[in-house]
């Protein structure tokens, strides 16, 4: 056999320890929901926030849970053992370079990923394909906008060496 073909195995699990992640600290969360608006803005790929969001019911990939004075943002953890990717019946969900992304063209909205995700971080959508955080890598901005939009430093994008 030839040795060492291009290392392009589609699902590249593990090896995540040097990658940056979105982390949340609930102590600092104000439940202002700005992360959700910035997320929706980023994925709209519009240049102007007001135009992107005015009169629209947003479908953010990051979502605030709140109750009795506690609040925090939940988005995809880009797990080292991504059950959504392993369970995806179409191959639409894949993981490469530490980021779980979705191929909207392939997704048929069966919701096996919603069945699989332990964090509730994959959402149904009205347009067929499911919605999930891709760390904004597929937007024109390129880096997580929830972090930029958080006014209190409750959401950060850091390398923690898990």
């Amino acid at each position: 056999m030839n040795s060492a073909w291009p290392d392009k195995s589609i699902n590249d699990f593990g090896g995540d320890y040097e990658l940056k992640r979105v982390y949340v600290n609930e102590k600092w969360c104000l439940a202002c929901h700005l992360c959700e608006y910035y997320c929706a803005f980023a994925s709209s790929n519009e240049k102007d926030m007001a135009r992107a969001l005015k009169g629209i019911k947003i479908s953010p990939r990051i979502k605030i849970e709140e109750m009795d004075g506690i609040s925090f943002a939940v988005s995809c953890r880009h797990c080292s053992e991504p059950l959504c990717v392993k369970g995806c019946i179409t191959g639409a969900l894949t993981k490469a370079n530490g980021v779980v992304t979705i191929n909207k063209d392939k997704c048929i909205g069966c919701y096996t990923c919603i069945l699989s995700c332990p964090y509730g971080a994959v959402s149904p959508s009205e347009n067929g394909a499911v919605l999930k955080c891709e760390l904004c890598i597929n937007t024109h901005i390129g880096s997580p906008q929830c972090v930029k939009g958080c006014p209190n430093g409750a959401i950060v994008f850091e390398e923690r060496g898990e």
Partner: protein
Amino acid sequence: MKYVIIGNSAAAVGAVEAIRRNDKESGIVITSNERYHVYSRPLISYLLMGKTSEKKMKYRDDSFYTDNGCELKLNKTAIKIDVSKKQVIFEDGDCESYDKLLIATGSSPFIPPIKGLEKVRNKFTFTRLDDARALEVALKENSKVLIVGAGLIGLKCAEGISRKKVGITCVDLSPKVLSSILDDEGSEMVKRHLEDNGIKFCLKQNIIEFEENSALLGDNTRIPFDVLVLAVGVRPNISLLKDAGGKTNRGILIDERCRTSIPDIYAAGDCCESMDVSSGEAKVMALLPNAYMQGECAGMNMSGVDYVFDKAIPMNAIGLFGKHIITAGTYTGDVYYENDGVNYKKLFYSDNKLNGYILIGNVEKAGIYTSLIRERTPLDTLNFELICKKPGLMAFSKEFRAEKLGGVRNES
């Protein structure tokens, strides 16, 4: 080292992706009795609906085999394993030597032995791409279609062909639709939804006899049809291993490392029987996610890394005419129940553990319940009352959230 994989679906892909994490040198031979690049079998109903295409339903990219250094041998039917020579023998006389062998042969439709079935010319099963292609050709406008079986395959087939202006009647021995995954009340709700979408049902009915274009039911009614679809269930393809002297029951028996009873032979996917952690019973769980994860587990162990997959549970996500159903686990124990006529929820729990759930309609965050079942999470470690009403991370401890969302490592 040489790996041979019999089968070319989810379990095979799981194995290849795992093997290549550990071993980028050795050869992998994949054999299939079909003629296609790996595709997703559950998508054949979506193909008939026009929601996907043969190109999009490929489970991995066109370059998958070359990227992973696999030799793909299509149209090859394995007929025997010679354990002493470590060889697989094929119908065409070829043989393939292996160091590590994975049996990922899947399952085949069960054909019920009903009198007169041989007289029916337009009859189909519905598990493979060729089945879908053949069925599509047979369907004409106003065709009357009789589907035998109101389970997952039969109903997805019904949905798949419904836009083609055909009349669909579904017959099942069971009094319920989706009897393997739904309770009586949930099943009734789904049945009404299907009837509202034009599907007719003859439940609790056996078929006594077929004529070429009709079926005689147990209550003496005769149902005419142009096209017959047999969807009464599938049977694991176990004969290769069984004939080689390996241990089988309904499926091939595997341990938590996906090893069969024969050294260097592994098995994964629909052909296997494995432990359901929600019930503690061994069973065939013919589901794509389990197939991938078993394949992955087999691939890890085949390539020399000790790896355990011991968290299989029955689980299904199915959409029918816009209504979503997600179920998992075993339906035993006390019940938490909600039903507002549109959204239906039942959670089953006992001994401080969640055993199973049924969600119809609103299925958001279902995976949080799945995780409680899979991980056997003690329910007294979280706010159970809250999580019953509203699945979310709010019901977990601050420490759990700090670890999972905040990247804080708990020293304990």
